[in-house]
Each structure stands twice: as structure tokens, then as C-alpha cells.
């Protein structure tokens, strides 16, 4: 069973690769395009996958950041992410994994409670971002954030590591779950 490991390959020169995992291909594609529009000194690569594990016989670069995309309107998308998480090595969760929940803006369509994804993110000690990917402006802003996070995770930002970023994000964004 192939498991993704963060440091099992050598990095490409000035390359930063992000892996977006989610069932809704159209949303992932749009987010990928938005990210690639950003001005960035690193060479960006975006891999899109419906689920993990990834096909094994493929030559791919080292993955610097994994973002699991959950659509709050779809239990199917949550289940898919939960199952894919089993194929990620524990060491990835030291700042190189993030969760992204979309669809919170349309409360009436949500079949997954916010708390469910918050618990999931907490369990995996990873940041959770909310963004309605269908809205172009929100998507563009999120793309900017992700590019910045990606550069840090790829080690392209001096003095900031993925672990630094994680502790920064956790203190402000993930409140203690005892309150939930």
C-alpha cells in the first residue's frame, strides 16, 4: 500500500508542488488555475487527485503540501477525504497538510456540520481553512494564501519552516476543542 511521505524524494530546483485532494474535480481545477495565476518566484506545480492512494507507477516530484478539500454539501466528499488520510504518512502532518472546507456560505445546502471538519482537522493537528471555492474572489484570495503556504512548506522562504507556520496557524485559528 503506497503511503505518501514528505521527504522520500529530493526536491526539484526551485520547485514547489502542491497536491489537492478532493472529489469535485471542477473546483480543484479552478483553484489550481487561480494559484498558477499568482506571481511567484518558485516554480509551481499542482497535482489534482480525487483520492489517495495515488497511482503508483508514476514519476512525480516531491509533494510539499497536501490540501484535502471537503465540500460541506457532500458527505461523499468528506468520506473520501477520511479514507484518503489513511494513505498519508504521519510525518506529513508536521505542517505539510491542510484542510479546506468549501460551501459554508450556503448553510441550507450543508449536510456536514462545521464541527465535523473542525474535529477532523484537530485530530490530524492540521490547519483548517474555510473558503467558498465557487466564488471567484474568495477563490483568488485562498489561492494567494495557498501559494504562500506552499512556498514555506517547500522551504523557499528563509527562516520560516512548515513547522513554524503550523504553530503560528494553530494558536490563532484552531481554538481549544473543549469549547466546542
Amino acid at each position, binding site marked *: 500500500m503506497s503511503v505518501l511521505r514528505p521527504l522520500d524524494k529530493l526536491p526539484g530546483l526551485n520547485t514547489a508542488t502542491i*497536491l489537492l485532494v*478532493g*472529489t*469535485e*474535480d*471542477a473546483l480543484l*481545477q479552478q483553484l*489550481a*488555475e487561480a494559484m*498558477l495565476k499568482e506571481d511567484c518566484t518558485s*516554480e*509551481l*506545480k*499542482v*497535482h*489534482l*487527485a*480525487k*483520492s489517495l492512494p*495515488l*497511482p503508483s507507477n*508514476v514519476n*512525480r516530484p516531491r509533494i510539499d503540501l497536501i490540501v484535502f478539500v471537503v465540500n460541506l454539501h*457532500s458527505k*461523499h*466528499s468528506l468520506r473520501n477525504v477520511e479514507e484518503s488520510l489513511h494513505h498519508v504518512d504521519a510525518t506529513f502532518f508536521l505542517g505539510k497538510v491542510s484542510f479546506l472546507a468549501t460551501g459554508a456560505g450556503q448553510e441550507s445546502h450543508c449536510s456536514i456540520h462545521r464541527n465535523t471538519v473542525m474535529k477532523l482537522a484537530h485530530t490530524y493537528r492540521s490547519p483548517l481553512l474555510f473558503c467558498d471555492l465557487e466564488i471567484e474572489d474568495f477563490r483568488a484570495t485562498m489561492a494567494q494564501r495557498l501559494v504562500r503556504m506552499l512556498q514555506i512548506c517547500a522551504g523557499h522562504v528563509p527562516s520560516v519552516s512548515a513547522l513554524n507556520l503550523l504553530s503560528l496557524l494553530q494558536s490563532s485559528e484552531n481554538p481549544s476543542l473543549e469549547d466546542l
Partner: protein
Amino acid sequence: MRREPAGDVVRAKEMDETVSEFFRRTILKIPLTEMMTILKTWNFLSENQLQTVNFRQRKESLVQDLVLLCEENRASLNDAALLDIIYTQFHRHQKVWDVFQMSKGPGEDTDLFDMEQFKSSFKKILKRALKNVTVSFRDAEENAVWIRIAWGTQYRKPNQYKPAYVVYYSQTPYAFTSSSQLKSNLPLLGQTFETHNSTTPLQERSLGLDINMDSRIIHENKTEKERVQRVTQEIFGDYPQPRLEFAQYKLETKFKSDLNGGILAEREEPLRCLVKFSSPHLLEALKSLAPAGIADAPLSPLLTCIPNKGMNYFKIRDK
């Protein structure tokens, strides 16, 4: 042709009253919001003529003005029939359509299809069979032709207000029919088609996979995407789905449990559940579920059997 007495020469040149009435009733049917579009599609009244009409007046007066213009242009019954076809094309969803599939007899040759020849012999055959019949044609997209047939009897002129429509896709063995009357005339239509079986196979459509322009985006599950597209195409086909607005499933089942006992286990009454799907275009929505990643492919046969079974109300019971 009977000879008109001299005094009636002028009247003979005017439009027949029944045709005039037919025009009036047909134009009256058209909603004001669609009036301009439909008249322009019909292309019988010129731009200049249309400009002389006040489209903001009361509908009855507007219709009167338009009928007068038609009379000026010496519009014929055929022109009126064409307008009726166009109206029906705009309102096709308000009609109930049956679909017929033609099958090739053994030993029949593959003939090249000629639209004009089809139309002329279709008309000839119908006119030979029935003395009083009005047949009109209008070409449409994708090698389709709309045929309007107004039926009469041996002794009565065709009733223009209860026409039958046939939409024939010449490159396929399918014809759609809709009738405002008894279906007694359908066997005749069937026979009329016999000589015009289309035997050219459906045009091959290639799988329209998104070719990613940006090489920096890599789809890891390309094979899976292709599989989903293929399965979806196998189940739903390439062409637009029939328009359906809802489907309803009633489930009745006794409670089943692995655990022994429990309150529900001994319940005699079955559990009932009703699920209703509604959508402006339900079958297209179902077709797009798997490619959009919202559901796995293949979809449940309960959903995909709708066109095959011709049902959209289902009762699911325990065996």
C-alpha cells in the same frame, strides 16, 4: 377550378376566411414576450412591415394588425402552417411526444438519404392515401425535419387546429410524434416512413475530455476520470437526455437488524420512506453527477433505469 363571376374577382384574390382565421388564432397563441422572436424566425413579414406595427397595443389589436399584414402579403395556408410549426418548436416541451424506432427489414440496402426527396415522397404518399391533408416541413438542427400534418377526411377539409407533428432525425432510426387527436393515423405515418429508413449509423462522437492547457496542472486520476466518462457515456449516451422534472421513489421495508431484539426488530408495520428528486432537467443532472465527482460511477440502476423503463414513479418493496 370554378369560374368566379366577374363581381367576385376582387374577393377571390383576398385571403380565404378560414386561412385568415387560422392566422389570427395562431398569432393569438404566441405570448407577447415571444412575439418578435417568433415573427423574425418566421421571416415572412419584412422588417419594414414589422416596424409599422405597434407592439405595445392590446393583444387583440396587435393580432388584427399582423393578420392584415399577412393578407397584404398574400399569405397562404402553407405560410400559416409554417408559423404553427415554429410556435410548436418554441413550445415543444408543452407537448407529449412518443418515440418510434424504425428497424431495417432483412436484405434492405443502405441508401444515401436525400432530404428533399424524402419530403416530396412523404407528402405524395400521404396525399395519395388521404384526399384531405395538409403537410408542411421545416428543417431543424442535426439533420432533423419537423413535419406538420393536418388531417381531414374524405369529405372534410383538414382540421388545422389539431395537427400532428413528426420530428424525424434523418441520420437515425428515430421519429418523434405528437398528436392532438386519436392516434388512429399513426399506422399510416409508420407506413409512410417505410421507404425512408435511415441506415447511416449515428455519427461517432469522441469522448470530450478536458485537455489541460496548463502543463503545470497534473491530474493524478486521469484513468479514473476516463473510466467515469466512459461509464457515463455508456449509460446515458452522447445526446441530450429527455427532459424530466422529477422522479419519486417510495420505499417500504421491514426493519432488519443484526442485533437481537431492539424496539424496531419486532415491529410488524413496515417502515415507509419517500424520496423525490426534482430538477429543471433531472436526467441531465443525474448524468453530470459522476463526472462532477458528486457520486460514484456507475450510478445506482434505480436512477439510470428511468429512460429505459419509461417510469419515474417507483415503489420499492422487500422481496
